[in-house]
C-alpha cells in the first residue's frame, strides 16, 4: 500500500513539474545556449523505453556542457528523474547531476536555487524528497549516487524545522546492508565536512562502530571520518566502555586509529598510519604507548634488542653481540599484564614499522616524523625505531627514514650504538641513500668524541669505496666539524698524526682522505681558538693551499672580510662620471678585488660577483666612450660594437643569473642596458647605413626609454644625476628633433652622466652549476655507430636556481660547430636540500661518422625570458600593455664546459 501511495505522490509531483516547466520556455530561450538543454529535453521525451533514455543520457554525458546551460539541463534532468521508473536511468541521472554540479563556472548551490525557483512551493521538500524518496531505492547504485549528491549539495544552513537534518539522513545509511552504500554515506559526510559544515559529535560513535566493518573501503572511510571528528572536537570527553573513566576524544580516536594499524587490509593500514601522523593534539602518554613493545619467551620477559643496546651503552661496554644467549629471558612475567593483541595505541608504530607491505612501513615512518617534529620527547623515543628502518629491505623505506631522521635531527642526539647502525648504511651501493645520509650527518648531533671518530672513519671508508662521493663527503665533514668543535679538539693530534717531540712525515696533499680530515679539523678550529696551536707547520701550509683551492669548504681562521665588500663599493662611489680621470684603473682594481673575495668567501660570492659584473659593465661603457676612439675611422668601430653586445649580455646575466634582487637593483641593471642601447644607437648613426633604419632605431630607443620610465617610476628618485634622469629632462626635445641631432644629444648626455651607485640587497645568490659527471678526464672515447644514438650520463649540482625544471637546459657542442640544446625531464631534477638541485639525466648524442675520435663539449644553460620571469613584480603590468615588447629570450651558460671524447663509427654493412 505504501508503494501505491508513493507512486501516486510521484505522479502528482511530476505533473506539477511539467506544468511549471511548460510555463517557462521563455526563460529557457533566454539562455545563450538553449539548444543543448532543449535537444536533451526533446530526446528524453521521445524516448519510449528506458534503454532509449539511457542511451540518450549516455551520449549527452559524453558531450561537454557550457556553464550557462547547466541550469536548464539540470532542471530537465530533475524532471525526468521523477517520471522515470527504471532504476538504471535514475542512477544515470543522479550521477549526471552530481557531475554537472562540479562543472567549472557553475556554483552547485544553483541547483538548489534553480529548484527553488522552478518548483516554488515544493522547493523546500525538493531536495529532501528527491533524495529521501530515492534513498530507499532497492538498487545500491541509486542509493550511492543519491548520497553523493547529498554530500555535494546538502544545505549548509540550519535546516527548517520540518526538514530532517542532512547529517541525520546520511548517518541513517551508515547501517545500510550494502557496503558500497555505507562507504558512500561516509564519503558524503566527509564531503559535507569539506564544504564547511560542522559535523555533529554524535556521528563519532557511529563512525567508530564502522571501524570494525567487514569491508575495507568502509573501514578506510571510517578512519578518515574518525580523524575528522577528532580534529573537530579534540577536547570533548568520551567515556571508556566497561569502565567509569573518561578520556579526551582525540586520545580515544588516536587509540582507535592505532588499532587499525594492525588491520587485515593493507590499504586500511596505510590510511591509518598516515592519519596518525596528523593527530598532533594527542596526549604524550598515548603517543608513547605507540612505541611500546614487550617481548617474552616461555612466559619470561625478554629484553628487546633496543633495550639491550641501551644497557650496553650505559654500562660502558662496547656492543659485542658475541655473547651467547645475551638475550636470555629474565624475570617471570605476570600473565595478566601481557597484552597479546594490540589494544588501543599500544605498539601501533611497532606494528606499522614491521608491516610486511612497504607502503605501510613508509606511511608509518612518515607519521613518526610528523609526530616527532612536534614532540621532542617522542622524537627521542622513536629514534631507535627509525634507526632500525635504515636496514629495511626496500630502498624507498630506507631513503624515507633517512630523510625523516634529518628532519627531526634538531631534537635528538645520536648514541654511539645508534650512530654505528646509521653509519653502516654509508656502504650502500645506492647513491641516493649515501647522499641522503651525508645530508643527515650534516645536521646530526653526536654525543662523544668516539662518535666523531667513528663517523670520520666510516666516511673515509665510504670515500675509498666510492670516490665519486668526494665532494659530498667533504661537505659532510665540514658541518660535522663546525658542529662539534669541542669533540674534535681531543682528536686533533691523532687525526693529524702529530707527535709532541718528533716531526712526522708530511702527508700527501692530493689524498682525498687527508683533505677530508683537514676539512673536519679546520672547520672545528674556527670556533675553537686553542686548536691551531696543535697544528704543525705543514698543516698551516696546507691550510693556505686549501683555503685557496677549496675555499667553500675551508673557512677563514682569523681574518674578517665582511666589511671589505662594502668598502670596495664605497671606494667606487667616488667616481663622479664616466669620463673621470683614473676611473678605469680604480674600477679595474676593484673588480679584481671583488672577484678574489668571491672566491674566498662562499657566503659573499653572490654579492661580490654581482658587483664585479656590474662594475665591469660600467668599465666597458667607460672605455667605449673614451674620446680618442671616436676619432678613428668607421670600420674600426667594430670593436666598440662588440663592447656593446658584451654589456648587453652582461646585463642579462645580472638580471637573471642572480636571485634575491630587489626592484632597485633591477632598475639599475635596466639602466645599464639603456646606456648600452644608447651607445649602440650612436654607433649605428656613425656607420650611416641609411636614414630610414636610423629613424626606426631612434624610435625604438625612445620607446625603451619610455618603458623604462613606466616600469621604474618608483625608483626614479633614486636615480639622481644619472643618464636616465638627464635623458628624461631632454625627452621633449629629443622626440621633436631629427635623428642626427638626437644622436648628438645622446652622446653628450652619455658622457656627462655619472656612475650609478649600486646598493647591495640583503641576500644575493648567483645561480651556479657544476657538472660532476662526465668528468672530462676520460681518454677512452665513447664509441657508437653513426646514425644511432648514444646516451651520455650527466650529473650536475645546481645551486640557487629557481624553477630548474623549466629553465635549465643542456647544450651539446659538436666539433663541427653544430649545437644541440636538450631540455631534461622534470623528474631528473632532485632536491637534496634548500636552494640546491641535482640534475641526473641522460642526453642522447648522435652524429655522422668521424674518422677519428674527437671531443664534444657539454654545458648547462640557464634559459630566460624577460616577459615570463615572475619573480619581478612589474611583469604583469608590462604584459598587459605591450605583450610583444621586451620579451627577450635567451640562454646564459652557467657552468663550465666539459669535454667528452666520442667516436661515431661508420655503420657496418
Amino acid at each position, binding site marked *: 500500500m505504501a508503494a501505491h501511495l508513493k507512486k501516486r505522490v510521484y505522479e502528482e509531483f511530476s505533473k506539477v513539474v511539467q506544468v511549471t516547466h511548460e510555463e517557462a520556455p521563455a526563460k529557457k530561450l533566454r539562455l545563450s545556449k538553449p539548444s543543448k538543454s532543449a535537444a536533451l529535453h526533446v530526446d528524453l521525451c521521445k524516448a519510449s523505453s528506458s534503454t532509449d533514455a539511457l542511451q540518450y543520457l549516455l551520449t549527452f554525458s559524453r558531450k561537454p556542457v557550457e556553464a550557462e546551460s547547466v541550469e536548464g539541463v539540470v532542471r530537465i534532468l530533475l524532471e525526468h528523474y521523477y517520471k522515470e521508473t527504471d532504476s538504471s536511468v535514475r542512477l544515470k541521472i543522479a550521477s549526471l547531476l552530481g557531475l554537472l554540479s562540479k562543472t567549472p563556472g557553475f556554483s552547485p548551490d544553483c541547483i538548489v536555487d534553480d529548484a527553488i525557483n522552478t518548483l516554488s512551493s515544493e522547493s523546500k521538500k525538493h531536495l529532501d524528497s528527491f533524495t529521501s524518496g530515492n534513498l530507499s531505492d532497492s538498487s545500491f547504485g541509486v542509493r550511492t549516487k543519491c548520497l553523493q549528491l547529498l554530500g555535494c549539495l546538502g544545505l549548509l544552513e540550519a535546516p527548517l524545522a520540518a526538514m530532517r537534518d542532512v547529517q541525520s539522513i546520511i548517518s541513517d545509511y551508515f547501517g545500510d*546492508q550494502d557496503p558500497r552504500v555505507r562507504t558512500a554515506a561516509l564519503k558524503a559526510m566527509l564531503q559535507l565536512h569539506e564544504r564547511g559544515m560542522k559535523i555533529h559529535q554524535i556521528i563519532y560513535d557511529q563512525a567508530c562502530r564502522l571501524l570494525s566493518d567487514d569491508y575495507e573501503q568502509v573501514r578506510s572511510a571510517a578512519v578518515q571520518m574518525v580523524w575528522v571528528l577528532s580534529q573537530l572536537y579534540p577536547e570533548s570527553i568520551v567515556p571508556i566502555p566497561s569502565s567509569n573513566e573518561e578520556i579526551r576524544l582525540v586520545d580515544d580516536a588516536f587509540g582507535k586509529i592505532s588499532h587499525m594499524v594492525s588491520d587485515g587490509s593493507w590499504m586500511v593500514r596505510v590510511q591509518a598510519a598516515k592519519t596518525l601522523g596528523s593527530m598532533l593534539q594527542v596526549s604524550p602518554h598515548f603517543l608513547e604507548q605507540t612505541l611500546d613493545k*614487550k617481548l617474552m619467551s616461555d612466559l619470561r620477559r625478554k629484553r628487546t634488542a633496543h633495550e639491550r643496546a641501551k644497557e650496553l651503552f650505559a654500562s660502558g661496554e662496547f656492543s659485542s653481540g*658475541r655473547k651467547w644467549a645475551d638475550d636470555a629471558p629474565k624475570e617471570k612475567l605476570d600473565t595478566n599484564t601481557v597484552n*597479546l*593483541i594490540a589494544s588501543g595505541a599500544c605498539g601501533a608504530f611497532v606494528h606499522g614499522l614491521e608491516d610486511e607491505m612497504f607502503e605501510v612501513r613508509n606511511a608509518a615512518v612518515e607519521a613518526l616524523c610528523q609526530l616527532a617534529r612536534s614532540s621532542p620527547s617522542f622524537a627521542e623515543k622513536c629514534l631507535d625505531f627509525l634507526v632500525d628502518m635504515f636496514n629495511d629491505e626496500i630502498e624507498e623505506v630506507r631513503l624515507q627514514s633517512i630523510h625523516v631522521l634529518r628532519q627531526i635531527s634538531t631534537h635528538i642526539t645520536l648514541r654511539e650504538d645508534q650512530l654505528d647502525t646509521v653509519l653502516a648504511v654509508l656502504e*650502500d651501493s645506492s647513491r641516493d641513500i649515501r647522499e641522503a645520509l651525508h645530508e643527515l650527518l650534516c645536521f646530526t648531533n653526536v654525543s662523544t668524541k668516539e662518535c666523531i671518530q667513528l663517523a670520520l672513519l666510516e666516511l673515509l671508508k665510504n670515500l675509498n669505496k666510492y670516490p665519486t662521493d668526494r665532494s659530498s663527503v667533504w661537505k659532510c665533514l665540514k658541518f660535522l666539524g663546525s658542529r662539534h668543535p669541542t669533540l674534535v679538539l681531543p682528536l686533533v693530534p691523532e687525526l693529524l698524526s702529530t707527535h709532541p717531540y718528533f716531526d712526522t712525515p708530511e702527508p700527501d696533499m692530493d689524498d682525498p682522505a687527508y683533505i677530508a680530515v683537514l676539512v673536519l679539523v679546520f672547520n672545528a678550529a674556527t670556533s675553537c681558538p686553542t686548536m691551531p696551536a696543535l697544528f704543525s707547520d705543514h698543516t698551516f701550509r696546507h691550510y693556505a693551499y686549501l683555503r685557496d683551492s677549496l675555499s667553500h669548504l675551508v673557512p677563514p681562521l682569523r681574518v674578517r672580510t665582511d666589511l671589505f665588500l662594502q668598502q670596495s663599493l664605497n671606494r667606487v662611489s667616488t667616481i663622479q662620471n664616466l669620463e673621470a680621470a683614473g676611473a678605469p684603473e680604480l674600477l679595474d682594481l676593484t673588480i679584481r678585488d671583488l672577484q678574489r673575495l668571491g672566491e674566498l668567501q662562499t657566503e659573499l660570492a653572490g654579492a661580490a660577483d654581482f658587483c664585479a659584473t656590474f662594475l665591469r659593465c660600467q668599465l666597458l661603457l667607460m672605455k667605449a666612450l673614451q674620446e680618442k676612439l671616436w676619432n678613428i675611422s668607421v670600420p674600426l668601430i667594430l670593436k666598440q660594437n662588440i663592447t656593446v653586445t658584451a654589456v648587453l649580455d652582461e646585463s642579462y646575466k645580472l638580471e637573471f643569473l642572480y636571485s634575491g634582487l630587489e626592484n632597485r637593483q633591477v632598475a639599475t641593471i635596466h639602466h645599464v642596458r639603456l646606456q648600452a642601447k644608447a651607445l649602440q644607437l650612436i654607433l649605428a648613426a656613425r656607420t650611416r647605413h641609411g636614414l630610414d633604419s636610423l629613424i626606426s632605431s631612434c624610435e625604438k630607443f625612445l620607446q625603451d626609454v619610455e618603458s623604462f620610465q613606466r616600469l621604474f617610476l618608483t625608483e626614479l628618485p633614486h636615480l639622481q644625476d644619472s643618464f636616465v634622469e638627464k635623458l628624461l629632462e631632454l625627452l621633449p626635445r629629443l622626440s621633436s628633433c631629427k635623428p642626427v641631432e638626437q644622436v648628438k644629444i645622446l652622446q653628450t648626455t652619455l658622457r656627462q652622466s655619472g656612475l650609478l651607485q649600486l646598493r647591495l640587497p640583503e641576500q644575493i645568490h648567483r645561480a651556479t652549476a657544476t657538472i660532476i659527471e662526465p668528468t672530462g678526464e676520460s681518454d677512452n672515447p665513447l664509441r657508437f655507430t653513426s646514425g644511432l644514438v648514444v646516451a651520455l650520463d650527466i650529473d650536475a649540482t645546481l645551486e640557487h636556481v629557481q624553477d630548474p625544471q623549466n629553465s635549465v637546459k643542456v647544450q651539446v657542442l659538436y666539433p663541427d660547430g653544430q649545437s644541440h640544446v636538450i631540455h631534461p625531464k622534470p623528474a631528473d631534477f632532485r632536491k637534496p636540500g634548500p636552494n640546491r638541485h641535482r640534475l641526473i639525466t641522460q642526453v642522447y648524442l648522435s652524429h655522422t661518422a668521424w674518422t677519428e675520435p674527437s671531443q664534444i663539449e657539454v654545458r648547462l644553460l640557464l634559459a630566460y625570458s624577460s616577459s615570463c620571469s615572475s619573480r619581478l613584480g612589474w611583469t604583469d603590468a608590462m604584459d598587459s600593455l605591450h605583450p610583444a615588447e621586451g620579451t627577450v629570450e635567451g640562454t646564459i651558460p652557467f657552468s663550465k664546459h666539459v669535454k667528452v671524447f666520442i667516436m661515431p663509427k661508420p655503420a657496418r654493412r
Partner: protein
Amino acid sequence: IGKITGCVFPLQGAGQDVGRSCILVSIGGKNIMLDCGMHMGYNDDRRFPDFSYITQNGRLTDFLDCVIISHFHLDHCGALPYMSEMVGYDGPIYMTHPTKAICPILLEDFRKITVDKKGETNFFTSQMIKDCMKKVVPLNLHQTVQVDDELEIKAYYAGHVLGAAMVHIKVGSESVVYTVSVNKYAKSHISAWIDKCRPDILISESTYATTIRDSKRCRERDFLKKVHETIERGGKVLIPVFALGRAQELCILLETFWERMNLKAPIYFSTGLTEKANHYYKLFITWTNQKIRKTFVQRNMFEFKHIKAFDRSYADNPGPMVVFATPGMLHAGQSLQIFKKWAGNEKNMVIMPGYCVQGTIGHKILNGQRKLEMEGRATLDVKLQVEYMSFSAHADAKGIMQLIRMAEPRNMLLVHGEAVKMEFLKGKIEQEFSIDCYMPANGETATVTTNPSVPVDISLNLLKREMALGGPLPDPKKPRTMHGTLIMKENSLKLVSSEQALKELGLNEHQLRFTCRVQLQDPHSDPDTLHRIYTHLKSVLKGYTIQHLPDGTVMVESIVIKVSSSAEDTNAKVLLLSWSYQGGEYFFTALCIVKRLMYQ
C-alpha cells in the same frame, strides 16, 4: 544441531615436543585428515601415526573423504607414502603446488637416509613415493575446490615456508580453518592473510604460544653485521643449514646485502639437494614476499648473482668467503668437513641459524666448548667465533592472536604445544575474544556443537508480494513477518504462498469464520441502526470497501455485520459480527468503531 569433532592423532609415547602432526576432523558427516606427519625421534613403528585407530579393520579410503597437507616439512607430510601405499588409501590428497613439488624430494632424501644408510627394511620405496604423489591434487591459493557435492576447501597463504597454506574447510554452513605456523607478525618471506570467514573452529598450532618476538629486522641486522665484519677482517664464514626453507631465506638476505653494500667476497652454497630446492624456489617466485616479487620485474631473485655452487677445493682458497653447507647441526657431511678446516683460525666464524640437538658438534660449540674430541682420538681446538641466530619462522603468540582477529572464529582449537603454554594462550584468547578454546591432548577428541542455519527455498512470487506490502526496502534493524506455508518434502524445505501449498498438496481450502455477538442498547429500529453503523463506518474507514447489502447486512472487507433485536426488549439490540480468519485485523478496528458509536 551439528557437531564438529577434532581429534588429535595418537602417537604412542610421543612427547610434547615438536614432532608429528596428524589431525582428524569430522564435520557435517565428512572425515578429513589434516596433515600426515611423522616423528623424527623414533626409528620403529612409532614414527608413523597409528592408522588402525581410525578404522580398526576397515579400509581407510572408505572412512576418509580427503587428506590435506599444509606444508612440506616432514613432521607434516612424512607419513604420507606409508599411509597411502602401505596402509592403503586411494582418496584425494590436497596440497599446494610448491608443496607438491618439494615434498617428494624431501621424502626421497629421508628414505635414502633411513633405508640406504641405516639399512632399515619395512620402509616405503621410491616407487611408493611416486605412486603416492599421483594421488595428490594440487591446490591454488584462494581457489575453492569442491571435494564432493558438500565438502569444499580453499587454501590461503600462510607464512612459514614456501607453499605453506591455511585451509578453510566447509561443509554446508559449518566450517573449519586449519593453520600451522602462520607467520604474520614477524616479517618473513610470506605474509598470511585470511578472509573474515568466521569459521566454527580455528585449529592452530601453538608451539610458540608463550613467545613474543622482537622484530625480525633487528635479528637480520645483527646477522648481516656479523658476517660483514668477518668478511672485512678477511675471515671466512660458515653457515651450516638444512637444505630447505631457512637456507633460501638466508641466501636472499645475503644476496641483497651483497648487492646493497657492493661487496665482492664470494658466497658459496654446497650442492646437492639445495640446488633442486633453489630451482623450485625459482619456479614458485610468486609465492614469496613483496620484496622478492618486486625484484622479479628485473630478474628472478633466486637467480643468484653472488651465490655460486660450492666445490670441495674452494675451502682452502685464501681470502674471505661465506659458505652455506649442509647439514645444519654440524654432525656430519660437508659442513663438518669445512668446520674442521676453518676451526683453527680466530678470524673465521660459524653462524648457527637454528636449533641444535644435544650431542651434535653444533650443540657443543654453542655451549662454549673450545676443545672437541674427534673420532680417532684427535682433538680439535675451536678458535673461530661461534654465533647463534634464531630465525625460526613459527608464529608467535601475537601472530596467532592476529589471525583470530582476522578470521573471527567461534571456537578455537590449539594443538601442538606444551600444556602450560597452551593454558596461557587459551586464557588470553578467552579473555580477549570471549570465545571457547579447546586444547585436546593426544588421542583426545574435542567436540564443538554448532548452530547451523537451515536454508529454505522461497518462491519468488511470494517474496515479491511480501516486499510490496512494506515499502521497497527492508529495514535491517527491524525483523519483518511474512505469511506463507512451509513445506518439508524430500529433504528440502520450501516456503510458498498458502494457495500454492494447497495446490501442491492437493488439499481443499477450509474457510474458518469467527462470530461474535455484541449486546447494545439502541432505540432505533433494526434497519436504522444498521444504516447508522454503515454511514459511520464509511466516514471513519476511508480506503476500505464498505458495502450495505440489500439482505440487511453490512460488509467491511470480509466482515459481516448484522443487527437483530431480541423479542422482549426492542431497545436491546444484538450485533452479530462474523469474520474470516484472514480478516482478523480489520475486525477489531471495526468493532471498536462500532462500539464507540453506540456508546455515544
